[in-house]
């Protein structure tokens, strides 16, 4: 641009100089200039004039170009400013990003699960009473990805049987029991090592059906009377998938101290009002504080099950389990149990499950010998939501029925192991929410033991 300006100035100067010269020289001088020279000079001036005009036009074009460029630069700067402003506004308008998981909770986590129940019982021929308030928390502590400690407690406030035996002064008791306390080490996808106070996997009811999980407030007769719920020991367990469509085999193998004798002897307990066999009493510490098994050897047991889904919510699980071990201090007699369990789901509304339990144990009693006991239960439930009636109350109801029997348990009336009890239970579960349940059942009993009577049970249950 500067060069162009200089050129224009020079040309303009030449033109001016030419004019000055033509004016300054006298006519007589001009007269000395030939026509040819004059014409050449004239032609040169005309050419210079033409060039000057051309340069002026070029200059105008340049000026226009400069203005256009300046305008475009200004627009570009404005666009950039707007874009920056928009990006700032967009960043401010974005919602808060999802809070990252706390590192501490990734590596370990403490958690409380569990359930609570409140129960009213009206036994046949007795006054009704609020008989149970139960708080059963489960504490979970996870350390890393594959170590878990879990402990379950059962805190129960319960009448001392006032509703059952008519004793108005029995008061109440508060019990605090350790249901289980075990450390789990998940070794791989198929095997977990557990150690501690274990829930014994004889059948599935003890592990997966007790408390809030069951749809009837009380346990099946045979489960309560014939099987230990827990034992101190070590266990290997896990599941092995068969194919990739949900079917799997599951197993448990364990060693536990096993049942023991109340008084250390191998007698049956007839005449003592209670049987001598203590299914859950052997914890490895004797009453004289010596750390030792009450009998010589631990019990061994296991369960093998197979879970077969046919389609989502349609599945069948079958299992067989058993345990055997010494129960008296001298180690002269074995206690042995075998359980067959089954659970069937036909859609999200229908469930049927049951267990068949056989036990036997030897005694020192001549004439009693080996005591054989057996019992079984089957439980069927149906959620009325499956009828698709679209009624709010009906949709939250589940009807439940159970039949259970117990043969060979101790009969305090006869002072013998000859009880024969059959129980029919009909009831319902009303789901106030998915965790708050109201359950109501009536149990019809047929037994040769007159202490066993039918009863109405109402229970409010909360799972958390």
């Amino acid at each position, binding site marked *: 641009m500067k060069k162009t300006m200089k050129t224009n100035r020079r040309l303009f100067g030449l033109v001016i100089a030419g004019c000055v010269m033509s004016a300054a020289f006298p006519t007589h001088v001009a007269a000395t200039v030939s026509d040819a020279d004059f014409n050449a000079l004239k032609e040169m001036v005309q050419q210079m004039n033409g060039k000057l005009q051309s340069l002026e036009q070029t200059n105008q074009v340049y000026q226009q170009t400069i203005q256009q460029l300046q305008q475009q630069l200004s627009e570009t700067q404005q666009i950039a400013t707007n874009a920056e402003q928009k990006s700032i506004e967009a960043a401010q308008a974005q919602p808060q990003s999802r809070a990252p*998981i706390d590192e501490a909770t990734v590596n370990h986590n*403490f*958690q409380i699960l569990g359930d609570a129940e409140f129960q009213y019982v009206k036994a046949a021929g007795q006054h009704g009473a609020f008989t149970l308030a139960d708080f059963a928390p489960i504490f979970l502590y996870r350390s890393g990805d594959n170590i878990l400690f879990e402990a379950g407690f059962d805190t129960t406030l319960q009448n001392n049987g006032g509703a059952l035996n008519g004793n108005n002064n029995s008061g109440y008791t508060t019990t605090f029991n350790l249901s289980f306390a075990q450390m789990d080490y*998940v070794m791989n996808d198929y095997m977990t090592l557990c150690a501690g106070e274990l829930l014994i996997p004889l059948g599935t009811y003890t592990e997966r059906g007790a408390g809030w999980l069951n749809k009837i407030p009380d346990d099946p007769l045979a489960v309560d009377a014939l099987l230990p719920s827990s034992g101190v020991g070590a266990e290997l367990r896990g599941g092995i998938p*068969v194919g990739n469509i949900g079917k799997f*085999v599951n197993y448990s193998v364990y060693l536990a101290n096993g049942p023991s004798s109340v008084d250390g002897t191998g007698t049956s307990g007839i005449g003592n009002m209670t049987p001598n066999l203590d299914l859950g009493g052997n914890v490895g510490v004797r009453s004289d504080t010596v750390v030792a098994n009450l009998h010589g050897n631990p019990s061994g047991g296991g369960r093998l099950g197979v879970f077969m*889904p046919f389609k989502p919510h349609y599945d069948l699980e079958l299992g067989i389990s058993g345990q055997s071990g010494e129960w008296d201090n001298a180690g002269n007699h074995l206690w042995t149990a075998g359980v067959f369990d089954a659970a069937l789901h036909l859609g999200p509304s229908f469930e049927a499950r049951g267990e068949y339990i056989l036990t036997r144990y030897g005694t020192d009693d001549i004439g009693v010998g080996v005591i054989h006991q057996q019992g079984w239960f089957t439980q069927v439930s149906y959620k009325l939501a499956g009828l698709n009636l679209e009624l709010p109350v009906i949709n939250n109801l589940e009807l439940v029925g159970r039949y259970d029997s117990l043969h060979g348990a101790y009969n305090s009336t006869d002072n013998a192991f000859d009880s024969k009890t059959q129980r029919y239970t009909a009831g319902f579960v009303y789901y106030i929410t998915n965790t708050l349940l109201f359950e109501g059942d009536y149990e019809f009993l047929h037994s040769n033991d007159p202490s066993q009577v039918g009863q109405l049970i109402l229970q409010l249950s909360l799972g958390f």
Partner: protein
Amino acid sequence: MKRKKLILWGAAALVVVCLSGPGLTPAQAQPVSGADSASSPTNSAALNAQAPDAKPAPVKIQLTGAELYSMHCNRCHPERYPTERTAAQWKTIMLHMQVRANIPGGQAKLILKYLQDNSGR
């Protein structure tokens, strides 16, 4: 004694039959993702259309975490909503449930992923 033996043998036979049973059929299970949709030119239906005599190509199937969740959790208790717990809490609870219900680790991981993806926060 005969009755006990009969029961034991019957139970053993039932277990064997169950182990060799078909379980879910491919038609009942869901494909892994939309990649196996019918519009794919490589699916078995398209192959059958081109070559009726050829055996149908095996369809790779695997249950999703959501399906395994509805299959396993509802067996013992009412379903708990994924939003009821945080991702870290679900990790602890699933470890507990994997042990308690003997769920294979691979299936437990799929269920955990489903629960964490839909967790409360």
